């Protein structure tokens, strides 16, 4: 009992140790290969292959009569490649949409697999339940000696596949990178995108099969895709991307297994739930691509635009010497502004002394006037520019200027103005401040 003597574990602890070891091995190989499925927008082909390997696996099993991995692996890889190939043939020859072709192929193959299992269940020691959600809990119980150490039977093949995946990624790092991001360039460089594609599909099939007993054919999709999808929200570079995916998968594997152990739940399902939790937390809170950050960014932008619209509006009223008492303070024109944002915009402008309230009337302060002048300048410079260079009719100028004014800095405005031979007035005949 290697682990027990090393870590001074109780028998129950030993089971936990080996089960976690198996789930880590499963998660790592899935996460690594899954990164490329996510990047290449082939997640659904991963889904299709993980279903479709079933008949190959069963036939391999029936021929060899044991859970020996090699014949099952050969059968499954053949079935996996057949799926990729048939999908392509249906897409090209019969002109059926790629994902519909996939849907036809994998459901059919999966059905054949389930029927084979049910018909020959006396020979095939797999039950439909195991196909769907695996038996990770049972890994530590079924052990085989290897070099005098009792290891879970599943672990050595899983480690071999993991090693193969790592080797594949290292050996073809450059090719995978280029074919994933720019297949056209890869072709001009003399790489065969097709060969890499089928190699990748082979690796996906191998991984799926090796992980099959532990997590089944549907939850393996989560192990494949979710770490990559999570990492995709966190980083923009391939190296960190792969590492992040790996770490995410480890967190979920350990956390999920311990949770299942404590609450007496299905381990593979629970790891999937853990993956889901990690993913959704990241999807909401990721620093750059998260939903919350995006919302915040959009909210801040619309607040700024609403503020600037108010300033510009008041400036125009002052310019035309209208009675400021009638000047509306809310932003108007352009995109619709939520009442909350409008209210907030007025408040913040008052607080930060861009606006002041005098005798019940809101007016621009000194600061506010300066900022408003910049905005009006950007607006009118843009109108002149659009009239001059884009040849827009007069009544089309305002709408575009109203949008663009928020993004033209004073420096850019001066530059455009110089480029236009320093006009005094905009196309509508109003003075450019």
């Amino acid at each position: 009992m290697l682990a027990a003597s090393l870590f001074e574990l109780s028998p129950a602890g030993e089971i936990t140790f080996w089960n976690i070891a198996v789930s880590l091995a499963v998660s790592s190989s899935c996460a690594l290969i899954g990164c490329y499925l996510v990047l290449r927008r082939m997640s659904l082909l991963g889904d299709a292959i993980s279903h479709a390997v079933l008949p190959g696996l069963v036939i391999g099993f029936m021929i060899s009569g044991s859970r020996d991995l090699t014949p099952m692996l050969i059968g499954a890889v053949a079935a996996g490649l057949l799926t990729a190939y048939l999908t392509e043939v249906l897409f090209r020859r019969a002109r059926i949409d790629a994902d519909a072709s996939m849907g036809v192929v994998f459901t059919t193959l999966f059905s054949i697999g389930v029927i084979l299992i049910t018909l020959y269940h006396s020979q095939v020691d797999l039950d439909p339940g195991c196909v769907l959600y695996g038996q990770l809990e049972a890994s530590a119980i079924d052990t085989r000696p290897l070099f005098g150490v009792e290891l879970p039977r599943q672990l050595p093949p899983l480690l071999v596949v993991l090693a193969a995946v790592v080797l594949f990624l290292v050996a073809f790092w450059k090719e995978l990178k280029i074919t994933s991001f720019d297949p056209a360039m890869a072709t001009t460089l003399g790489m065969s995108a097709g060969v890499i594609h089928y190699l990748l599909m082979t690796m996906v099939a191998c991984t799926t099969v090796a992980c099959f007993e532990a997590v089944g054919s549907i939850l393996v999709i989560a192990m494949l895709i979710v770490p990559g999808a999570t990492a995709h929200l966190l980083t923009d570079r391939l190296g960190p991307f792969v590492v992040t995916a790996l770490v995410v998968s480890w967190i979920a594997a350990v956390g999920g297994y311990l949770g299942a152990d404590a609450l007496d739940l299905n381990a593979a399902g629970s790891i999937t739930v853990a993956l889901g939790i990690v993913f959704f937390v990241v999807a909401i809170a990721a620093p750059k691509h998260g939903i919350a950050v995006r919302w915040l960014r959009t909210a801040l932008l619309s607040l700024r635009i609403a503020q600037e619209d108010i300033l510009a509006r008041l400036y125009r009223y002052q310019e035309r010497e209208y009675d400021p008492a009638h000047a509306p303070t809310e932003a108007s024109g352009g995109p619709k502004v939520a009442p909350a944002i409008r209210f907030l915009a007025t408040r913040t402008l008052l607080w930060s002394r861009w606006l002041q309230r005098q005798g019940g009337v809101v007016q621009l302060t000194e600061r506010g006037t300066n900022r408003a002048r910049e905005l009006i300048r950007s607006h009118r410079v843009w109108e002149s520019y659009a009239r001059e260079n884009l040849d827009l009719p007069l009544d089309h100028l305002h709408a575009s200027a109203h949008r663009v004014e928020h993004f033209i800095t004073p420096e850019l405005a001066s530059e455009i103005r110089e480029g236009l031979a320093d006009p005094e007035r905009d196309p509508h005949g109003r003075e450019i401040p």
Partner: protein
Amino acid sequence: MTLEYNTLIVLVGTVALGMTAGIVGCLALLRRRALLGDALSHATLPGICLAFILLGQRDFPFLLGGALVTGLLGVTTVAVLTRWTRIKEDTATGLVLSLFFGVGITLSSYIQNHSTTGAQAGIDSFILGKTAGMVLGDLYFIGGTAIAVLLVIVLFYKELKLLSFDSAFAAVEGWPVLRLDLLFLLLLTVTTVIGLPAVGVVLMVALLVIPAAAARLWTQRLGTMMALSALFGAITGAVGTLLSTSYPNLPAGPVIVLAAAGIFVVSVLAAPHRGVIARTLSLRQMRRRRERRKLLVFFFERREQGQSILDTGDFEKAFGGPQPRGLSDVMRDGWVSGGEGSWELTEQGLDRAMEVTRAHRLWVHYLLTEAEIDRDLVDPDTDTIEAILPAEVVARLQRELRADGRFPERSALPC
């Protein structure tokens, strides 16, 4: 074969289901959302389990109500992820599919390990489907929902059609595209949910995709496609049910899927225009037509050089064989006569060869001198240059060729 009462109930149920799924599947296929149904059906599992945990027993409409809720949640999650994050649609689909299924499996293991009623079998039958358990009450439920779905499709046929083929155009025309899309998703979800008891979570997508994909091969019109798809769905349901009642230990889902796959394979092979057989035949026909024309042009060009009788040696040089393919064709058409090593054009053959050469040279000349047409679009081996180019252009081309001495006509031939 006599049908038992139970079998009859199941049969009616699966046929109604197959028809509905076939029709809704057409919309999904044309919107290129075929696999969304996959994510959706997997996403119903946690709902079924939750409903079971809440209720503590297997009440059919209630479980399907739970399925509906999480199914819609799954579809919404796909939409939210693709809209608000950089996750692409395929990843979002796979993600929802596997994560929701994982939650379902976890809940299902909770039921198995903690529930006192021990009615786990009720849940398990939803995963791979079990038609045998259907009772008359379930049938009313499925039938009623199916009729409602069909009614909605009939009412909104024009709108859904527009949405399926050109949603951008629909938006420009001022149709409420978002609301119609929601309607479509609702139809898809409801259909998926009523299909669960028969086909199961894992394979429901097959019932949506396969009949529709098969029907797509036979026709170009949406109405016909829906009718065919409904027919295929009905056959699938009937055959699948009869088979799975004969082998009750088989889960129904896979059997039904294989029945659908059978129809699909037949369609791929036998469909007109798009089927493999039809395409192979038309390809072969085109090839033969080409060879025939090539041969006629060859005869004519030799004739222009003063040689009217050709022998195997001539063919050997030009076609790499003593008897080019297509020779028997032109002889059967009566354009070439001869045999025993020497052949010549007949009177009609000469006319025909002249026409063919004329069209060919006009095209080549046109392509060489003023081709602004994409060369790939033009088949120089057609007679129809007059039908494609304006008359005055053809006349000019003819003048130019004639001035060149290359316009095929009898007066220009050496005797």
